[in-house]
């Protein structure tokens, strides 16, 4: 009962401590010599250890980017696998420094949990996956269907809302982890499986017969996924936010892992500011001026990280879609580094 233990730990700490530590995270991370990153552990493409035990994924890359910015070493990260149930208590209690775990940015989470979201690094939406044998072509035909879902997520709420607003009746089967929900769907306990659309493609690969399952076309919700930090620590939030902005700006400017070294001597003022040849932007964050160059050297720019983990260079083959750059019709818009 990991979540029970964590919650009890918070209660004890909050009960007898007179001050909750805040505004110290960057210093604490530097002193510790490593970043504590809350990750998923079960989501292919986003955060999962490979058979050799090395963590890979889109969210994992993000934490490595932060570690590279601070330490110039993307391996100075310790990944803490968290379930949907205990991810927020782990962040609130200080067990992790940043939560990079495909978490949706919602108002209630922003205002009621004492956490802040840094930047949307993946625009997602909720979808359904059904067994092909059911011959279902649209989510609107799922009246009276059993749906496997992970509990404690926006998925659970959106599912109930969607079925209610379309006057369909729902038989939910909720599980504590995505793994169990997927296994139950695979064994035929449920007709459909629902989670964020990116998660559907990743989860489909883990089924016993991936080609016997289809993803329905409907996207029933907005799921802007964003890394989260504790509230009250603006300096740390800036570090996390601008790590993402650096990666997007790098893609906009054409700076990638291969050419970052030679781009340092570029004449383009935007590239010069990004890579630290001009200005003291890194130091204003509490890092070194070549912070962005370190990030790109370690994990590449936004597009490279996307394609490698969830895009065409991965088994998931998700298209950029909403996550393309704003200049290509998507929503990823790098805030100016100046």
């Amino acid at each position, binding site marked *: 009962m990991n979540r029970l233990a964590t919650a009890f730990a918070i209660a004890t700490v909050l009960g007898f401590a007179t001050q909750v530590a805040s505004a110290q995270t960057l210093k604490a991370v530097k002193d510790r010599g490593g970043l504590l990153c809350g990750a998923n552990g079960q989501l292919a493409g986003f955060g999962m250890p490979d058979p050799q035990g090395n963590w890979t994924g889109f969210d994992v890359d993000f934490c490595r980017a932060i570690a590279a910015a601070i330490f110039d070493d993307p391996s100075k990260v310790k990944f803490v696998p968290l379930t949907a149930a205990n991810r*927020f208590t782990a962040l609130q209690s200080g067990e992790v420094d940043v939560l990079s775990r495909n978490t949706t940015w919602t108002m209630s989470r922003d205002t009621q949990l004492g956490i802040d979201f840094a930047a949307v690094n993946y625009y997602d939406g909720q979808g359904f996956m059904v067994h092909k044998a059911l011959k279902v072509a649209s989510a609107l035909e799922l009246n009276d269907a059993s749906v496997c879902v992970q509990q404690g997520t926006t998925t659970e709420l959106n599912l109930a809302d969607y079925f209610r607003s379309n006057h369909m009746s729902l038989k939910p089967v909720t599980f*504590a982890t995505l793994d169990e929900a997927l296994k139950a769907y695979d064994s035929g306990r449920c007709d459909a499986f629902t989670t964020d659309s990116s998660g559907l493609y990743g989860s489909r690969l883990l089924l016993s017969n991936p080609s016997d399952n289809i993803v329905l076309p409907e996207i029933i919700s907005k799921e802007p996924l964003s890394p989260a930090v504790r509230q009250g620590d603006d300096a740390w939030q800036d570090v996390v936010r601008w790590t993402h902005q650096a990666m997007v700006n790098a893609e906009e400017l054409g700076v990638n892992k291969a050419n970052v070294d030679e781009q340092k001597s570029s004449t383009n003022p935007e590239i010069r500011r990004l890579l630290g040849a001009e200005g003291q932007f890194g130091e204003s964050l509490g890092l070194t001026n070549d912070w962005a160059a370190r990030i790109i050297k370690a994990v590449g720019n936004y597009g490279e990280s996307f394609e490698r983990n969830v895009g065409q260079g991965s088994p998931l083959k998700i298209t950029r879609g909403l996550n393309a750059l704003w200049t290509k019709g998507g929503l990823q818009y790098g805030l100016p580094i100046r």
Partner: protein
Amino acid sequence: MSDVARASPRLPPHRERRGLNAGRLVLQAALLAVVAGLIGAAGYNAAQNLAKAHIAHGFGFWNNTAGFDISQTLIAYSSSTSTFGHAFWVGLLNTLLVAGVGIVLATILGFVIGIARLSRNWLVARLAGGYVEVIRNIPLLLQILFWYNAVLKGLPEMRGSIALPFGGFLNNRGLFLPKPVFAPDFDAVVIAFAVGVIAAIGWRIWAKRYQARTGAQMPIVLPALAVIFVLPFAVFVVAGKPLTFGIPDMGRFNIRGGLEILPEFAALLFALTVYTAAFIAEVVRAGVLAVPAGQIEAAQALGLRAGTTLRLVVVPQAMRVIVPPLTSQYLNLIKNSSLAVAIGYPDLVQVFAGSVLNITGQAVEVIAITMAVYLGISLVTSLLMNLYGRTVVVVER
């Protein structure tokens, strides 16, 4: 009677003479005040720190709309209109249901296995012993997962449901039975049943007193059964059979109508029953072995058969040794039911300390309420068991 063990739960005589005095009262009151003060200070401190960290606190979330669906609800519940408070009650009722049924079944199975282990039949005793040794040593979570996966994998899918007599279905989504629909006139049948039960109990009391007075045995079982079942049935027929059944029928995805028993419920129930029965079996065996051999020899000398000896002589005396550890096993079962989280059965922990906690983010309040509820259930159970225990204590003459 020197070989009769002392069973009185009262304190030894010398302790009773000390009694209460002002000094000890003041000391205990002061200690109580200190503990209450510590708890109050911790609660106040927690509220202050939560406010400083901008984490929502307080119990206002109780009346907010829940927004999520629950797969098994014993009371009316809707995701759009029910509150988190309603979700709490749904979870609590589910926990009480599985715990209640589990306690009844585990006790029956445990008694059977425990007494079987003491049987003179070598095979029966060894089988019972094997059951206890194996089941006791496998963690409950693994057993729950085994039952869930065995139940699921063993049953056919929805399309190939096993059709049961009277229109039921059995598949890996659950057991679907015709749902009884009670017309208003059915109340008369319920009242008749209650009257029948009271009459049967009354008859038994009177028959026992008559036997004590005159020595003549009156038949008990048959008249009792007659009045418990025949009387309500007669009322049922006279009232025009006010009972219809909603037949489950196969829809496109699921079976509609009918009474639905979830596989999660069945798996959790079987696992809890089998696991706790192994422990209860050992408790029962200990109790039976604690009855002095002289009692059994005396019963045999009187010419009582083995079954009657067991029922009238051994088990009543064994009960005073069985009841306290049996209470512990019941409390274990109630708390172990929280492992429902692993297989998706919507019990209190899964619904309240799982979904509600994650949606509201108020871990401290939710976990505190959950712990208080489990504490309350456990205290009530042990209170009832202790009250029962007093009735089976051997009264010293």
